[in-house]
């Protein structure tokens, strides 16, 4: 199986690579080449950094076109900023547009009572059956580190987490998957989720 | 008849430690005392201290009024500093030069003096010191026996010569770290106690033995002589431990010495332990601790861990990990120097170590480099019988 971590200059690629290699025996490459991406069985879109910078990098590498096209037939998992990129837009930076593969807009957390960013382990409501959370216990803890979040998204199976208010912490459809949290930093729950995604047969 | 070997349930002191006492719950006297210290009425002791100081304080405000033996390390520095700044005494600090002093030891002593203390540096004859140390090593398994004696005798003589009867040693190790509790409630202690407990009864024997050496005369041993009981009385000498008057806390001493007396730590762990701020002054110290390990089954890490446990900085379980990792270190980094110092070859040297290894506790085995090593027959904290 070919797994490609999309390299657009932002993302904790090393962490992700080693976490994936531990759960799945696969041909793993980190790349932004069109050829590699289209030959993948699974795609992972990582993300650590700012949304503006991310979209700028994706545009300059022609990855907006490539990813949009690839995601029609190859399952893709967007992690944290990667999840944000898959969506319509974010108010981070200057209302930049994302890939718009999922209809939903990211906004910043607002609170005078709670500290922002949202940093640490928090539970995900996994009561709806799903691919990502198969065989994972109820109310599992995953590691979050973000200031922007998705309140709602159309036409996609969503799982929610409570922090200040309720937001979407993971979504999935036939080819598009996203997690706000970092499965590669989330101990056994995270490893299982990655494995579920990698084992999934669309 | 077999003996059960066990560990204190509160720290990791071993039942093999000389003179140590345990209660019904297998808690050693050091831990019992440590608990007592926190609820103890120290005001009485403070009063006793004030009275003692009043009695000996220089009335003319011109002379020294107490002697504090120091090495430049944390404990003596602390005591001298407190006597001067908190109690307004005029201490004369005294160091008896050890053999094989370390660079950091020398630096710390200089820093201490520069911090503003009156100091006398006593250097007993290095050749006689060497003979006494060597004899002590062979006859008693005490690598710096000559120095252990001199820090009592030479200090007392200095005190007598300066007409300062009051001498403040640091802590009574027996009470603080495990051992005889006979002086627990006594402010002053005696030369007899020094000979019996600190020198483990070997003073007279080593003395007469060293005189068999044609190169040593009675006069050469002048610095190692105790005053007679008469002289103690006429000079009104008073030997005391600071730990009697104030709760002894070595970490506190370290922090104060660092702040006020220029104390520097080693850059790395001292060999055989996890600390870097205690007993840094002389290289024979590591050998002393290794012999302790061979004789009794516990080394420097166990002692240091006990201190950390008792001051609440570490739990017993945490300490156990450290003891398993660091204890019983063979001081190979100093062996060449030891051999040169003692004028021995490695066979003779190891022969002395072999003599003191407790064969019930240790067995000799070849390691992966085919070198014979003493290996413990026991696992730390697992009771066994011998």
């Amino acid at each position, binding site marked *: 199986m070919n797994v490609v971590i999309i390299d657009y200059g932002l993302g904790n690629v090393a962490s992700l690579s080693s976490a994936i290699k531990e759960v799945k025996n696969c041909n793993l490459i980190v790349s932004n080449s069109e050829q590699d991406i289209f030959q993948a069985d699974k795609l992972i879109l990582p993300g650590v950094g700012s949304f503006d910078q991310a979209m700028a990098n994706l545009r300059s590498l022609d990855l907006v076109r490539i990813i949009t096209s690839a995601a029609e037939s190859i399952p893709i998992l967007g992690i944290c900023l990667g999840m944000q990129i898959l969506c319509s837009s974010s108010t981070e930076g200057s209302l930049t547009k994302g890939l718009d593969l999922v209809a939903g807009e990211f906004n910043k957390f607002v609170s005078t009572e709670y*500290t922002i960013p949202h940093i640490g382990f928090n539970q995900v409501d996994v009561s709806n059956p799903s691919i990502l959370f198969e065989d994972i216990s109820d109310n599992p803890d995953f590691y979050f580190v973000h200031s922007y979040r998705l309140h709602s998204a159309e036409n996609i199976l969503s799982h929610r987490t409570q922090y200040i208010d309720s937001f979407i912490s993971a979504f999935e459809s036939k080819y598009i998957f996203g997690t706000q949290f970092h499965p590669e930093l989330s101990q056994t729950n995270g490893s299982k989720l990655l494995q579920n995604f990698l084992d999934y047969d669309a | 008849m077999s003996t059960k070997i066990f560990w204190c349930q509160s720290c990791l002191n071993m039942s093999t430690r000389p003179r140590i006492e345990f209660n019904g719950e297998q808690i050693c006297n050091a831990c019992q005392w440590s608990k007592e210290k926190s609820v103890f009425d120290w005001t009485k002791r403070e009063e006793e201290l004030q009275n003692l100081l009043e009695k000996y304080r220089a009335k003319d405000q011109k002379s020294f009024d107490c002697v504090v033996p120091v090495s430049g390390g944390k404990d003596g520095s602390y005591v001298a500093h407190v006597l001067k700044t908190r109690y307004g005494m005029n201490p004369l600090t005294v160091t008896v030069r050890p053999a094989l002093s370390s660079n950091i030891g020398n630096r710390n002593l200089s820093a201490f003096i520069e911090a503003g203390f009156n100091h006398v540096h006593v250097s007993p004859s290095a050749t006689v010191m060497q003979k006494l140390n060597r004899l002590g090593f062979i006859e008693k398994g005490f690598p710096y026996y000559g120095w252990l004696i001199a820090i009592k005798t030479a200090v007392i003589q200095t005190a007598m010569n300066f007409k300062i009867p009051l001498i403040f040693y640091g802590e009574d190790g027996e009470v603080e770290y495990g051992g005889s509790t006979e002086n627990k409630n006594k402010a002053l202690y005696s030369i007899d106690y020094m000979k019996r407990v600190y020198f483990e009864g070997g003073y007279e024997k080593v003395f007469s033995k060293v005189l068999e050496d044609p190169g040593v005369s009675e006069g050469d041993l002048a610095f190692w002589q105790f005053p007679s009981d008469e002289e103690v009385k006429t000079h009104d000498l008073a030997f005391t431990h600071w730990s009697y008057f104030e709760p002894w806390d070595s970490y506190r001493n370290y922090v104060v010495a660092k702040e006020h007396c220029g104390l520097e730590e080693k850059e790395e762990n001292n060999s055989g332990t996890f600390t870097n701020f205690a007993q840094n002054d002389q290289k024979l110290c590591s050998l002393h601790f290794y012999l302790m390990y061979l004789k009794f089954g516990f080394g420097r890490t166990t002692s240091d861990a006990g201190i950390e446990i008792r001051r609440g*900085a570490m739990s017993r379980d945490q300490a156990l990990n450290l003891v398993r990792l660091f204890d019983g270190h063979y001081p190979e980094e100093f062996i060449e120097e030891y051999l040169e110092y003692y004028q021995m070859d490695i066979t003779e040297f190891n022969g002395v170590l072999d003599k003191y290894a407790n064969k019930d506790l240790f067995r000799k085995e070849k390691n992966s480099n085919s070198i014979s090593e003493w290996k413990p027959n026991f696992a730390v904290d697992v009771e066994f019988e011998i």
Partner: protein
Amino acid sequence: MLRKRLIFVLIYSEGFFCQSRNFRLQKVGKVDWIIDNYKFSEVSKYIDELIILDASPTKDIARFCDDVQIIIENIHIPKCFGGGISSLGGVSKLFAAGADKISINSLAFDDPRACKEIISQYGSQSIVASIDYKSEDGHEIVYKSNGTIATGIELSQHVNFLNEIGFGEILLNSMDRDGTGFGYDLDKIISISNLSTVPIIALGGAGNKNHFHAGLLIENVGAVATANLFNFMEDALGISRDYLLEEKINLAKW
């Protein structure tokens, strides 16, 4: 509900990992020593995050990154690296070495504008501000450059400043408590965690699980951390975590 965190800190200096006591460093061992005695792949199962700080008097970021990469191999938990960051270049090196977050200390004083640039490039959630403070005449004064230079700035004032710049978290380190095993500076942690708009990680003084407990009971504290290399060897962190969970402290389970 957001969990609190238990974090382990490694202090690095010139090739060695160190035990710090009141900011005096004792070299304990090089990378191999840590690997042998701190089986991090095991230990990482009991902690929420790992922080590795370069406290070398003279920095060699390449060597630091090399050594750190060996430690974190096969460690899948959030990692924060820091020490001597003075530019975007340094930040990118640390991220390239595997950091999930990076920590900045002196640069907040020396060049707040550069800090803002770093935050805007990488996102506030990835940039931690670390503060080293000491008590002097009844005030808490912040130090920089591995605790060697007094800034004269009072702690709460500095925290407000850091909140304004936009750091995502604050690592609050008591120099007085550091390495003593006396427990955290609880009063200060309470007041600063009530003051700060970003999460506080408390550091300095933890010697045993009871200290962690007391720290985590503080309502607004985000995490407790220890850099005590000796006290938490072998299974001690696991035992601490189990104990905290038994005491119903809000920590993640997996």
